[in-house]
């Protein structure tokens, strides 16, 4: 008896929505970055779940499209955090604030 895929996808959608709500409602750059991480994680969960559904080809060989995709997402998330936190540090340095509304000017 394995886990119904519908439940996995619903969980993924729920986590994604929580991430969206966090990213849209909070004004703190760190919380926004963490919400984006949460969304990426939700996407990963869906990818791994779908990989479980299409886990073997017609010939019976294993296939890993979803899991490989999830690995790529993890790598890209790590890159995103590195750059995001770099931006955060320079925002603090220039504006002395974590609030993204303080960085609404295109140039100064």
């Amino acid at each position, binding site marked *: 008896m394995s886990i119904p895929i519908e439940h996995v996808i619903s969980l993924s959608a729920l986590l994604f929505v929580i991430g969206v709500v966090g990213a849209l409602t909070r004004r703190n750059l760190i*919380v926004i970055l963490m919400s984006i991480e949460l969304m990426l994680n939700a996407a990963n969960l869906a990818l791994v779940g779908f990989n479980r559904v299409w886990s*073997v080809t017609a010939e019976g060989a294993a296939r890993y499209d979803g899991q490989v995709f999830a690995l790529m997402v993890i790598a890209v998330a790590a890159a995103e955090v590195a750059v995001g936190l770099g931006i955060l540090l320079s925002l603090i340095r220039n504006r002395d604030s974590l609030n993204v509304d303080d960085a609404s000017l295109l140039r100064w």
Partner: protein
Amino acid sequence: MSFEMFLFYAFAFLAVFSAVAMIGFVRHIVAAAMSLVVTMVSLAGIYVLMHAELIAAIQILVYAGAIVVLFLFVIMLLDLRDGGLGPAARGQNLVKAVGVGGTVTIGTLVVASVSGVFSVNPLVESLPEGFGEHRALGIALFTDYALAVELVGLVLLASIVGAVILAKRKID
């Protein structure tokens, strides 16, 4: 309900609870980061249940072990006042957010049920030997997906350079 199902729901509850805690009701940003860790680790548990053991290990290694620690490192570098969480959610934003969120959720479920992705392919019960373990996934990564691996390496290199430039006070 089998033990597997029980574990899945336990992990799912933990993940959703701590995700809500992260954006909603914790009072300090370090607590928010710790809730994110709990979400990550519960998701890793779910990955194990879905026969993706390597992904689960990498999930903990990269997310819990590196990404959130990096967040904590930056949080400690900054001198944050009153919890560092900033202003709470504004009503107008909340409406927008729930609107977008609801659309995404309903859209997902509608697309899923209309396209019938769940009914086409019932779960395969007998998986090949060593499914989702490092050996099989590694072979897949370095044969079928070699180009993608190289490109991700390029992305990582670019982000390292970008992070160094952003974080350095003055480039000499």
